[in-house]
């Protein structure tokens, strides 16, 4: 593959198996109206050589394509989609946004045409309903009907266009989607009403249904408008993350001058200065300066985070005050923000397994409905020919399976969006289903319940001023990059040390202004008689400062554990650390079940053991050294930031590092299941109640249209409740 192609594909493509392997590209599709469309698109793409897999999520209108760019050109892919009747653009922000804008305008325009004309047709139809016999002269009646007909024409020709084109596509592809019964229904109603208008004594009867027809179309378009809004909101949220990079960055040259360059021109190792109010152009580490940074875009946490020298910053977050000099570590596609965008795209373009079952059920259901309507029409033709058309149309309209096909995707998409705002990214939508069953939450300690950095817990010295010594120790620690030294320094200024030497595995050694050699490091290295309680020591000769560093639990760890227990879930702590440290952490967080000193193998055995006892285990780990245990758990959540994100095999990533998101996610999963069941129950109940009524001829097409559109609205709006 030529390098130019690779660059062209790069913004929306990843190569999971390396640059020569199969490519995974993301597209945004326009023109999709229902679940059946995704099957058509997938079938059309799989016919191309070099396409390994295609999966379209009907709720978000995203296409994930696994293909070999060496065997098929991008243009061929787009042409194949075009000839199937859909338009796709690569999912890079600008064209995708334009596509959405056109789609939204188009939908609003259609909705207005249908809605406004519906009201006018109602007005013209009202006299016929309210007039006493003989009050309305036949001439006037015909004029009103003609007026209704003229006003219905734009609705049929323009506003209802998507139903007809959708039905045509579905028929051509040999699949039955929900557009088919809708299109047949409105076409039959319009034909029958037009026939009645031109020839009131003809075989089609004398009744016109223009009011029912326009109302049905308007309500259906309204339901779709809401669905479109939900989809666009999800896409907008994604784009907010992707589009947060600044247009330029200020790169510092070695001679102290600076230049403004595009973020793409930055390389790892560059130094950039970020002024107050500016966004970070790349992931990196603060070299100088301190200030507050807003990382809400990535973590959902709106409170600013303090940053000082040595802290990591992520691209896309906003520097609120004070200029910071940043050492660039990751740029472009490797940054945390881009990793998140890819994961969100992946999750949104994935189609949950259960949704395939719903699609198949809906297709069978549609076929049954078409037969039923035909049978009803023929049956009523024998009983009462004048009502045959009305009954068949009512059956067609009332049973339209939109609610059935919308139920699951609407709920899943809304729930995953709500979770993403809380900083928990789902990489696998089916995890929502599995989360409901979880009764045991197993935490790893380091990096999960505790922050990775250490905190100075205690310092003491024999026969010396411990605090004064600590200040000196900090000024030396500032010179080292070792995690222990960084925890100790906590942003202190480096002192005036000479002859600085770092000894691997031991510590750091330097001379102060008077030439005295000091050591900071392992107690046994600093002193001949190490204090067993100390983790670090600082001193020269007999004057020694002992330091104890401990892991600090995350700020919300205790609260999250309490919330999980309140939900009736068992909380366990499983750590490879020393028993003393684990016991201390467990005591601080009030966790009764803990196990220390576990190796990866024994962790795995422990999780398997709990599962064998019937527990459903949610494992929360840092995703890197826990990989085997994570794989064994029923649901896996990894704490994640940085380049590790994309490689992790977890079902969800806790990007915000806020543990409180876990009890929230579990509660939301339960709520999602409830909403899903309500939706399916509603769709089933509605059909069971209305089909017999329609068959019996007690349900006029108008009432059928209201019922059907209301059931779709109910499903979409019910799913929106998950947003709160």
């Amino acid at each position, binding site marked *: 593959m030529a390098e130019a192609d690779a660059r062209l594909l790069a913004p929306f493509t990843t190569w999971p198996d390396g640059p020569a392997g199969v490519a995974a590209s993301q597209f945004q599709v326009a023109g999709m109206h229902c679940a059946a469309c995704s099957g058509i698109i997938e079938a059309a793409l799989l016919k191309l050589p070099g396409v390994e897999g295609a999966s379209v999520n009907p709720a978000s209108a995203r296409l994930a394509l696994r293909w070999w760019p060496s065997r098929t050109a991008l243009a061929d892919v787009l042409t194949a989609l075009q000839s199937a009747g859909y338009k796709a653009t690569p999912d890079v922000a600008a064209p995708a946004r334009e596509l959405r804008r056109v789609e939204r*305008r188009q939908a*609003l*325009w259609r909705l*207005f045409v249908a809605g*406004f004309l519906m009201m006018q047709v109602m007005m013209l139809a009202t006299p016929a309903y309210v007039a006493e016999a003989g009050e309305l002269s036949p001439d006037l009646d015909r*004029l009103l009907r003609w007026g209704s007909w003229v006003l219905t024409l734009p609705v049929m020709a323009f506003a209802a266009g998507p139903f007809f084109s959708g039905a045509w596509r579905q028929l051509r592809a040999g699949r039955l989607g929900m557009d088919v019964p809708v299109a047949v229904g409105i076409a039959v109603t319009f034909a029958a009403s037009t026939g009645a208008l031109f020839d009131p004594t003809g075989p089609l009867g004398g009744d016109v249904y223009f009011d029912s027809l326009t109302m049905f179309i308007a309500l259906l378009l309204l339901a779709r408008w809401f669905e479109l809004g939900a989809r666009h909101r999800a896409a907008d949220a994604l784009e907010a993350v992707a589009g947060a990079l600044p247009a330029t960055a200020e790169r510092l040259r070695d001679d102290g001058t600076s230049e403004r360059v595009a973020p793409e021109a930055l390389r790892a190792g560059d130094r950039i200065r970020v002024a107050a109010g500016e966004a970070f152009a790349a992931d990196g580490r603060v070299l100088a300066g301190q200030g507050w940074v807003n990382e809400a875009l990535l973590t959902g946490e709106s409170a600013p985070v303090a940053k000082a020298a040595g802290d990591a910053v992520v691209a896309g977050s906003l520097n609120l005050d004070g200029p910071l000099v940043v050492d660039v570590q990751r740029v472009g596609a490797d940054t945390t923000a881009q990793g998140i965008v890819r994961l969100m795209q992946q999750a949104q373009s994935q189609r949950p397994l259960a949704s395939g079952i719903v699609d198949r059920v809906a297709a069978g259901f549609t076929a049954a409905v078409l037969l039923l309507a035909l049978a009803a029409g023929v049956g009523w033709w024998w009983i009462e020919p004048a009502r045959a058309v009305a009954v068949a149309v009512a059956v067609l309209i009332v049973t339209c399976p939109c609610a059935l096909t919308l139920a699951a995707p609407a709920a899943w998409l809304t729930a995953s969006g709500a979770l993403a705002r809380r900083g928990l990214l789902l990489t696998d939508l089916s995890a929502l289903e599995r989360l409901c069953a979880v009764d045991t939450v197993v935490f790893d300690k380091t990096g999960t319940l505790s922050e990775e950095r250490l905190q100075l817990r205690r310092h003491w010295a024999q026969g010396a001023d411990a605090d004064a010594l600590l200040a000196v120790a900090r000024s030396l620690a500032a010179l080292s990059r070792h995690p222990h030294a960084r925890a100790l320094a906590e942003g202190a200024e480096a002192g005036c040390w000479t002859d600085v030497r770092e000894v691997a595995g031991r510590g750091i050694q330097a001379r102060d202004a008077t030439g005295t050699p000091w050591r900071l490091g392992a107690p046994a290295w600093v002193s001949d008689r190490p204090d067993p309680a100390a983790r670090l020591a600082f001193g020269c000769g007999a004057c020694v400062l002992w330091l104890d560093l401990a892991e600090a639990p995350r700020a919300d760890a205790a609260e999250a554990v309490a919330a999980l227990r309140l939900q009736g879930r068992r909380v366990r702590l499983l750590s490879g650390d020393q028993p003393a440290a684990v016991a201390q952490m467990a005591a601080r967080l009030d966790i009764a079940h803990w196990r220390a000193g576990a190796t990866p193998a024994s962790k795995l055995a422990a999780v398997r053991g709990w599962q064998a006892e019937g527990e459903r285990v949610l494992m929360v780990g840092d995703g890197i050294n826990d990989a085997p245990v994570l794989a064994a758990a029923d649901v896996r959540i990894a704490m994640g930031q940085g380049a590790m994100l994309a490689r992790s095999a977890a079902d969800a990533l806790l990007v915000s590092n806020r543990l409180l998101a876990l009890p929230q996610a579990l509660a939301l999963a339960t709520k999602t299941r409830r909403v899903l069941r309500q939706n399916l129950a509603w769709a089933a109940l509605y059909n069971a109640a209305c089909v017999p009524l329609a068959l019996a001829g007690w349900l006029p097409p108008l009432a059928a249209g209201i019922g059907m559109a209301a059931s779709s609205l109910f499903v979409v709006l019910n799913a929106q409740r998950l947003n709160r």
Partner: protein
Amino acid sequence: MDILYLLIPFSVVLVLLIVAVFGWAVNDGQLDGFENEAERILLDEDQAA
């Protein structure tokens, strides 16, 4: 009541005109955002999206 024979066709034509005006507004981007039109006066000519 004879006036109805004139008013009804007239109202139908009027309705279609209103629909056309709304279509122009939608496709001109005036309904893309609630603040767009209000803020347009604050933007330079070449900034107007």
